[in-house]
């Protein structure tokens, strides 16, 4: 049945892909597991006001059907004490970006191919050090993972270990980060965290097992765990997607509240524009592995420029609008294998111009903080 279907790869092509992949994967795996001196991955920030700078990051998945460029030349900055929202549809590479920062990609297929992820880490003695996470060997990653950067996952149901109590799991975070912590210290810290995330009966939750808690409670515990290490950056990957609307409202309220209380930045990944609008100071819109527009929340929501951003906002059903039919973007989200070199959104765009068949549009600065990658605005820039 395979021979008739033109949608399938032939045996020869598959072997060719596998051969090429294996070569690259071996190299990258060796690089990941190498032993090296710290000086090799120390670097400096281009802007000291940022906590994280991602520059031209390429993260590829070497699958059997070809190289999936899940993150394809992404650049973004996260300033200190700010919330940056990354928004996009499934497969746009928003989660893979966060996984790259945490170095949680599943090897050997998932690899950071090139690019820099500069992270401003605070050592225990209070000095700041800038690491290039992309170059760090995997054995040194414990320096930042968990204590400097913490992550909140989408699935509160499966992110907690079912055989340990909440207390044990929370205490562990403290033990890992403070080598000399006593049991009492750890418990005190855990209770403080549970109080911080608005859990009404912390003693009861401390002694409970994950299955005894509801989804919303578990997500609060996950947030408490992320906060327990006093991280400089919290990555929240779709923190409310698995929750009910009324519980989502609670968690969003909590996160907004925490934003002011903690000394750190939040990288919020979601597909929901509403959540971004409520939470984020800066917004990055991604499509098919590329950043297509970024700016402050006000700029993105009041003056969206890229046709995709505009379409996304229009197609989101809201309670306010009166129209009968929803606006929709035709076509499907592309699978980023064998992408052409013209604009990836061209096929679904309703405002195509001749130039769109040419090279992929570069990032155009339309205001000090607002960037867009679309040919429509190139003229404006040249004139102005």
């Amino acid at each position, binding site marked *: 049945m395979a021979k008739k*279907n033109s949608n399938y790869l032939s045996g020869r092509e598959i072997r060719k892909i596998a051969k090429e992949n294996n070569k690259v994967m071996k190299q990258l795996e060796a690089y990941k597991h190498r032993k090296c001196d710290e000086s090799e991955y120390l670097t400096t920030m281009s802007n000291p006001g940022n906590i994280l700078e991602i520059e031209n990051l390429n993260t590829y998945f070497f699958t059997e059907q070809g190289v999936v460029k899940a993150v394809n030349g992404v650049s973004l900055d996260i300033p200190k004490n700010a919330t940056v929202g990354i928004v996009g549809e499934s497969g746009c590479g928003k989660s893979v970006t966060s996984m790259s920062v945490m170095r949680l990609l599943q090897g050997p297929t998932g690899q950071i191919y090139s690019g820099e992820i500069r992270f401003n880490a605070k050592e225990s003695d209070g000095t700041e050090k800038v690491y290039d996470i992309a170059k760090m060997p995997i054995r040194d990653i414990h320096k930042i993972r968990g204590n400097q950067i913490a992550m909140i996952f989408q699935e509160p149901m499966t992110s907690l270990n079912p055989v340990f109590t909440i207390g044990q799991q929370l205490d562990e975070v403290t033990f890992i980060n403070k080598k000399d912590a006593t049991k009492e210290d750890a418990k005190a810290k855990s209770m403080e965290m549970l109080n911080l995330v608005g859990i009404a009966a912390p003693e009861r939750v401390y002694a409970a097992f994950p299955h005894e808690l509801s989804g919303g*409670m578990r997500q609060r515990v996950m947030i408490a765990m992320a906060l327990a290490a006093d991280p400089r950056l919290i990555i929240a990957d779709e923190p409310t997607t698995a929750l009910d609307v*009324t519980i989502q*409202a609670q968690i969003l*309220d909590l996160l907004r509240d925490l934003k002011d209380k903690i000394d750190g930045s939040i990288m919020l990944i979601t597909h929901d524009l*509403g959540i971004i609008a409520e939470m984020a100071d800066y917004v990055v819109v991604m499509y098919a592995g590329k950043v297509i527009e970024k700016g402050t929340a006000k700029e993105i*929501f009041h003056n969206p420029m890229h046709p995709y951003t505009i379409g996304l906002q229009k197609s989101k*059903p809201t*309670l306010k609008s009166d129209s009968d039919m*929803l606006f929709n973007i035709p076509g499907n989200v592309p699978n980023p294998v064998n992408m052409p070199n013209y604009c990836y959104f061209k096929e679904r765009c309703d405002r195509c111009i001749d130039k769109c068949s040419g090279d992929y549009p570069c990032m155009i600065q339309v205001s000090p903080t607002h960037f867009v990658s679309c040919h429509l605005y190139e003229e404006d820039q040249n004139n102005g």
Partner: protein
Amino acid sequence: MAEEKVIENFDPEVILEVKNLRKSFPLKKTLTGKVTQELIAVDDVSFQLKAGETLGIVGESGCGKTTLGRAILKLHQPTGGRIIFEGKDITDYNSKQMREIRKKMQIIFQDPYSSLPPRDTVGGILSEPVEVHKIVPKEKVKDYVLDLMDKCGLRDYYYERYPHEFSGGQRQRICIARALSVNPKLVICDEPVSALDVSIQAQIINLLKKLQQDMGLTYVFISHDLSVVKYISDKIGVMYLGSMVEFGTKEDIFSNPLHPYTQALFSAIPHPDPDVKMNRIILKGDIPSPANPPKGCRFHTRCPHAKDICKEVAPEYKDYGNGHCAACHLLD
């Protein structure tokens, strides 16, 4: 076939009537089979639906909306109450009688990945129901299916392909085409867009609306998202812990939500505008377990306006004018 009960004085415009529908699942049984603890998934739900209309059912997880949808199709045998479809009481139909009714009522599921059989081509999936129910003569099946695929926005060369080759949106179109292949009158849409991306959601909602106009379908559209329901529904029912807390036309529900839960649901939806700072009603606590619902009004544990009476007496489900029903003590 068993003797059909024809309901007298039945409004011919009403395609579906649900009367005091109840569905419970046994949780614990004694050795003799006596149920000692049960989960009441749907408790005393009633509504009428006219042909060509769309009823939106909104609620959070565990509110029984999915069970209600499946009980209407008799995929779960209801524990109590009546389901009247096209003037016939189908509650006690056996599986053979139901097989005839099946082609008039269909269902679209939430997850487009698990609801398509993985080892069959799109053509096979779509022609099977047509052949089984003998919708068209055998030699015309392929043309019929291709025509249907065209209506649902599927290209004809998808006929030979397998479901795993498609994205979520395309799979959902296949599911819709499969449901429509038997020319149903009533389609239960069980969260058909929740698993899809925003831009694809809009496509599917528009497709469903267009098909409704073309084929004169009646929908029961189940969703947890009020803003989605708004675009497709004529009437909306809000469910909480198994019972209907508010029911009315779209206009009534949106302009004048009566029940505090409906009001909270409205305010919980994040608005995509950073300048709009809504006065959000944040409900305290979690949704209670449906296996052990609170006494009195089920919502009283989370209700911001709960009074003493709410903890003791369950409120009556009453019509507050023009078919806008709600169950709340505050309204008396």
